[in-house]
């Protein structure tokens, strides 16, 4: 990727961020926003800019970057442009873990991502097992079917868990499953950013394995990659990233699908580049989608997952046509 294109990506992210900080029911100019960010101005404006808008933008950045990188890693390793955490049932598994934690009364902001991760890792293992049983690990259709099955099972599991839960828990869970960053608060963001940074850095560190695995398992083995170990490591990191986003923002679909494709369209080739570019594109996309979610029907708010699905589904169909 050229330097100009990288700059373009960062400009897009910056613009989305500015939109996220300046647009809203309370009119605050760019100057007012900057002063509020610095902590100057009246306490109410500072509260709006820092605790409401900036927190949402930061959570959207984490969500978008996490989903983008997760999708890029899964697509590269599986050599399948349709792989993404939502469609592969990974997000669904993470949701089961998180709902289980909430129903069990665990609500510490640090524990929720871990519970989601346990669920996501379980879902990855299940998808790969099903795909292997059908002897079609490399076949995109088998993998997607396995993902759909695991996702449907995850949904059913959540319904069972919620059947015995209180009215409030159910309402919270349903809203959260539609995806939203409206619940952004700094304590949660602190935990999520620690996990996300660790998983993101680890994923970039194993980017070379993603490149080699993309050549095919035999070729990768010939080049000295311990295929099973490397694959497992990458999947787990991708699952962790997806789980972090689920813990913070619920189920936000199709970002992991659209974003790596955009990164590649912009000229990213090597896995490292695709991963990093996907992080930036994903962040910009989700920040932008959240601005749409909270402004088109203001003062009401759309679920973020609905906005990303509106963008993502036509894109998915286009890719499916090209792959088929």
């Amino acid at each position, binding site marked *: 990727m050229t330097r100009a294109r990288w700059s373009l990506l960062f400009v897009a992210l910056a613009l989305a961020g500015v939109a996220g900080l300046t647009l809203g*029911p*309370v009119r605050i100019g760019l100057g007012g926003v900057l002063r509020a960010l610095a902590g100057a101005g009246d306490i*109410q404006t500072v509260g709006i800019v820092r605790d409401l808008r900036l927190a949402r933008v930061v959570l959207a950045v984490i969500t978008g970057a996490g989903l983008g990188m997760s999708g890029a890693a899964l697509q590269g390793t599986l050599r399948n442009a349709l792989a993404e955490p939502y469609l592969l049932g990974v997000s669904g598994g993470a949701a089961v873990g998180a709902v289980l934690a909430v129903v069990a009364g665990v609500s510490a902001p640090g524990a929720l991502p871990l519970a989601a991760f346990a669920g996501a890792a379980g879902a990855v293992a299940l998808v790969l097992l099903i795909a292997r049983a059908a002897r079609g690990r490399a076949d995109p259709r088998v993998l997607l079917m396995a993902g759909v099955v695991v996702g449907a099972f995850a949904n059913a599991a959540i319904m069972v868990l919620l059947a015995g839960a209180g009215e409030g828990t159910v*309402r919270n869970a349903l809203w959260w499953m539609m995806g939203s960053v409206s619940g952004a608060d700094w304590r949660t963001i602190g935990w999520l950013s620690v996990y996300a940074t660790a998983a993101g850095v680890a994923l970039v560190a194993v980017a070379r394995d993603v490149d080699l695995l993309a050549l095919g398992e035999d070729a990768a083995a010939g080049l000295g990659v311990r295929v099973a170990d490397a694959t497992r490591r990458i999947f787990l990191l991708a699952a962790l990233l997806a789980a972090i986003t689920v813990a913070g923002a619920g189920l936000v679909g199709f970002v992991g699908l659209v974003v790596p494709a955009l990164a590649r369209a912009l000229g990213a080739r090597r896995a490292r580049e695709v991963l990093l570019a996907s992080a930036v594109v994903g962040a910009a996309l989700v920040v932008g989608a959240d601005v749409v979610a909270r402004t088109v029907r203001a*003062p*009401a708010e759309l679920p973020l997952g609905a906005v990303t699905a509106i963008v993502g589904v036509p894109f998915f169909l286009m890719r499916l046509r090209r792959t088929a």
Partner: protein
Amino acid sequence: MENEPALYSCPGHRRRARARTRCLLAVIAATSACGAPASDRHPESAPTAVRIVDDFGDTLRLAQPAAHVVSLNPVTTEAIFALGAGARLVGRSRWDSSPDAARQVPDLGDGLQPNIEAVLAARPDLVVLYAAAANRAAAAAFRRAGVQTLALRTDRVADLARVLHALGLALGDTTAAASVADSVQRSLDAVRAMPRRTRPVSVFWHAWDAPVITIGAGSYLDELVVAAGARNVFGDMAQPSPQVTLESVVQRNPDYVLAGPRAARRLRADARWQAVPAVRAGRILVVDTSLVGRPGVRMGEAARALRLLIDSAAGVRP
């Protein structure tokens, strides 16, 4: 029809106590032709045929007042007790907790999309339902099973008089229904007639926080706020319970935030809600959600409680 071998003998039953109560009620109904029991207030001694068109458009026909009633809506359950017919209830929904005596009535589960079998097992001759689309199938199922249904909408202040009248007809005591409706109306009017505040007060009603849900113009709680002499900051929204962004709450800048006790604690502790000036200044008024939540026979009491709550807070304001 009863499948039990004989009306007057109580067959062995797992839940003996309940079965016995049912038998007892059956006996009362069977003997009521000879002499009306003291617990049932029938205005006329001869049974009258009743015909009511309910809020689903279904026609309810009763040869005599309903004797075994399942009420699956907190508002109607409370109203049936207010009409002095609580003893005729053989089932209620899990949400019906008022009056206290309602808790003694068997809990048959949810009031929306109820468990049909559980309700039929209570052998009612009338099922009172909340008239929501989700209950249409249940109403049809009860009617197919030969049980009469009365679906009533209980969403607004104005609904209550109609609900009381319909229940009065079904239970054979329209006099009691008219007198309860009248007393509710008078208590509500008394609150509305309280002197206007020198300075208008605006409120934000916190119904939920993830997502943020409040009350709009189409809701009973909006009517209650107006009756209490205040203005709902989202009173311009047509939906009864609109979902709004937290920032729009900041923008509309209510004088007070009304919330239930648990929600109030959450709001005080949540950094994001501090952006709302009323929350930051501690102007959160804790409402008794069990009293104000439903447009039932206690709505006058609820409006008065709300008015006094706002008055006491507004009085201490600088």
